[in-house]
Structures are given as C-alpha cells and as structure tokens.
C-alpha cells in the first residue's frame, strides 16, 4: 500500500525530532510502574492504569511503529490523552530509574499533532493573535496604550504622582504582563503600579510587541512562535536598556 499523504507528513515531521533519546526511552522502559503514583492525574483518577505516565507514550510509539499510518480516531484518542491526561510537569521522570522523560515525549506528540492541524481551539486562536498583534488576546497597540493611560488616570486620585512609565529608556526593570490583564483584569496592572511606586522602583512598560509574557504556543509545541515571543520581550528590554525583566504573577 502507498503511504498516505498524512503518514508521509507525520514521518517527515518526526524524522529530525525522534533522536537517540526518544528512541532509547521508548525501548528501555521496563514497565516497572514506579512512575505510576508520582503522577497527579493517576492519583486523581483513582489509580486508573491508563493514567500511568509510561502508558501515555504509547501513542507516540504506535505512530512510529505504524510509520505514521494512523486514522482520525487514533489521532482523537492521542489528542485526548496528551492534552487531558498530562500537563508535562516532569515529576514522573524524577522517580523513573532510567530518567525517562515522559513530558518531553508528550510535548513531541503535541507538536506532531499541531503540525497536522490538531490542537485545542483556544490555543489556536491565541497563536493567531500572537502572530497578528504579538499578544494572546489580540489587543492592538492603540488599545494597550489606552488601557495604560486610563489605568494611570484612575489611580491618580488615590496616589498622587503615580505614573505608569511607558518605554522609559534606562529604567532598571521592564515589566510585562499576561495579556488577559489588559483585557479583563486591568486592576492587576494598577496594583503592580502601586507597589512599584511605593517601592520607588525604576521601571517601565514596553508599548510594542513583547509586553505579553505568556507563551501559550509552547503548549502545542509551536516552538517557532514560542521563540518569536521570547525574542520580542528580549528585544524590547535591550532597546530600553532594562537590566531586568519582571513578569506578572
């Protein structure tokens, strides 16, 4: 049988990414079960065997074994597992006698599915927003500056002289936020501004791309976007001559 277009694409994606580590991990796992009770998903599911970390990489090993020849139903099952049964916390690895990195392989499976257009809708739209505006909520530069301005104005009655310095060159700290704050929780920005003011900190907020410190593209294994986001933040910090980048809680 001719390999399908999808299986070709899958194998092309995997080839450079399944290296010596992943291959060894899939092979040497001795199914000792020591990782089972280190996983919060397993414990929360009343010790359901399918939640054992070692069991969750079976999708990746199946895909490799079948040379990418998998159907939609299989992809859906893999999707449910890698998004709803593992948050890539890496705790299991700290107890595995071989140090098998389950989370790495889950991340690789997520990246593989993303390469085939499969990922959670919310993350897909966040990534679209990152590309269009540099932040996950799709806040335009105009709206961002507007938000900062009214945040500042609203606080002036509370604390005299309080400012949210935008693009201040030479400030020690460049402060970045989760873009959700700009959209839904501007009071968080205000609280931080108060702390900075009272502490007498030398700080600033960038106006251009890089002010959103979330990196949701990482969760689907879209490393290209992930990298761009980190680079944006570093570029702003360099332009402004900031010594430190602070990120929101």
């Amino acid at each position, binding site marked *: 049988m001719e390999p399908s277009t999808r299986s070709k694409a899958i194998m092309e994606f995997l080839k450079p990414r399944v290296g010596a580590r992943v291959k060894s991990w899939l*092979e040497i796992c001795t199914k000792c079960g020591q990782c089972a009770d280190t996983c919060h998903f397993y414990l929360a599911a009343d010790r359901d065997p399918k939640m054992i970390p070692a069991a969750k990489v079976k999708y990746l090993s199946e895909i490799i074994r079948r040379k990418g020849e998998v159907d939609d139903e299989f992809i859906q099952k893999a999707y449910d597992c890698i998004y709803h049964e593992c948050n890539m916390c890496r705790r299991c690895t700290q107890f595995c006698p*071989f*140090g098998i990195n389950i989370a790495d392989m889950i991340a690789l499976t997520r990246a593989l599915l993303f390469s085939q257009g499969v990922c959670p809708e919310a993350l897909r739209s966040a990534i679209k927003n990152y590309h269009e505006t540099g932040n996950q909520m799709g806040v335009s530069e105009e709206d961002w500056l507007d938000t900062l301005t009214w945040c500042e104005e609203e606080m002036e009655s509370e604390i005299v002289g309080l400012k949210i310095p935008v693009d201040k060159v030479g400030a020690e700290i460049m402060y970045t936020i989760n873009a959700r704050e700009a959209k839904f929780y501007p009071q968080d920005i205000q609280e931080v501004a108060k702390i900075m003011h009272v502490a007498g900190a030398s700080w600033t907020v960038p106006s251009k791309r890089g002010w959103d410190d979330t990196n949701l593209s990482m969760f689907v294994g879209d490393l290209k976007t992930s990298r761009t986001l980190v680079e944006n933040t570093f570029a702003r910090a360099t332009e402004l001559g900031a010594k430190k980048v602070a990120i929101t809680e």
Partner: protein
Amino acid sequence: MDVLALAEGPLLWISLGVFAVGLVTRAALFLVESREKDKIFWQHFKWKWVLATMAKWLVPANRTVAKDPVFCALAYAFHFCLIVAPIWCLPHIIYWETSRLAWSFTALPDGLADWMTLAVLAIAVYLLIRRLSSPDLRYLSTASDYVLLVITALPFLTAYLSVHQSLGTGNLLGDNMQLIHILTGELMLVVVPFTKLSHAVLFFFSRAATAVEFGRREYSI
C-alpha cells in the same frame, strides 16, 4: 563435534561477541544520532550533573528508594547478583583458565555464588508475581516483559540445577542440564542488545540526558 562442544565453543564465542559488539554498537549509535538530533543535550552537557545522577542511581540513594524501599532493595540486589555471580563463580573461571585465553582470577566462595544465584531466582519470582498481581503492571506489560524476565532468570535456574545435579541423572533433563545452562546463558546474551535489556548500556545515556536537562533547570536529577 557434539552439541556440548558446539555450545561451549563456537556458540559461546558468537554469543559473547553479539553481546559485546551489540552493546558497544548501541552506545555508538546513541552518540552519533544524539550529536545530530539532540543538539540541546550536547550544548548544555556538564559532567557535574552526569556524575551526580550516577552517584544517586547506581547505588540506592535516590527518591524512588524512599518511595518504594522494598522494590528498590530487591531490584538492586537482583542486578548486583546478576552481574557479579556469572563473572566470579568458580565454574566460569575454570572455563576461562582451561580456555585458549588461560585467564585466571579469584573466584567467589562456592557457597556465596550459590546464594547469589538463589537470590536472582527468588527476586525474579518476586518480580514476576509483582507484574502478574498488580493491575497497573498487567496493563503496562507486553509479552516481551514476561519473556525477558524468564530469559534473564533461566541461566540462573539451570546453573543451580546443573551444579547441584538436582534433577539426578539418567533422565534427559538431568543429564543435559549443563548444556541447557550454556544454551540459555547464550540466549540471554544475544537478546540483550536487541531488547529493552539494552538498558545495560542505555541506562547510562538516558540518565545522563535527563540529568543534563534537569540539572540545568535545577530539578531533582
């Protein structure tokens, strides 16, 4: 050439060769492929982390020992006896002394080698029961996990039966136990490089890879 001579001669050299060359090749392939595809590992490589992880996991000084002391004690004892007994037991040393290599080194006292053989067997039975009785392990295990455990244990079982002539003489099994021992030992040697038992060398690479990644992030390694 009779079967015993064949098993003791060419088959032994072939299986030792497959074992040794196989494991060295696995190690070499890991290094070559990881250089090409796991660049991140090499970019951050530090001996400090690698040695630290070995110091914790080659001996029972790690988190898993605290979590499951019984399993770990037995697993370490299993491996200790599994590696030491075959190398330093008297019959094997006599074989080397009388071989073309004329190697000679001090043997374990007979009684000790016996106990170590029994320990491997007892722990293998424990591992098998554990695998069969836990719903988790039954779910995880594939046929090869059972088969390989049996293949690992067989040379030890047959060693004991052969040395002690436990099955007596005048019957097919009893009369040929030494031959069966040699053949099962050779079987174990040849499967190691091609199965999960390749962990005999890949253990070191897998632990090292994770230690480098986790060490850099200051996680437990």
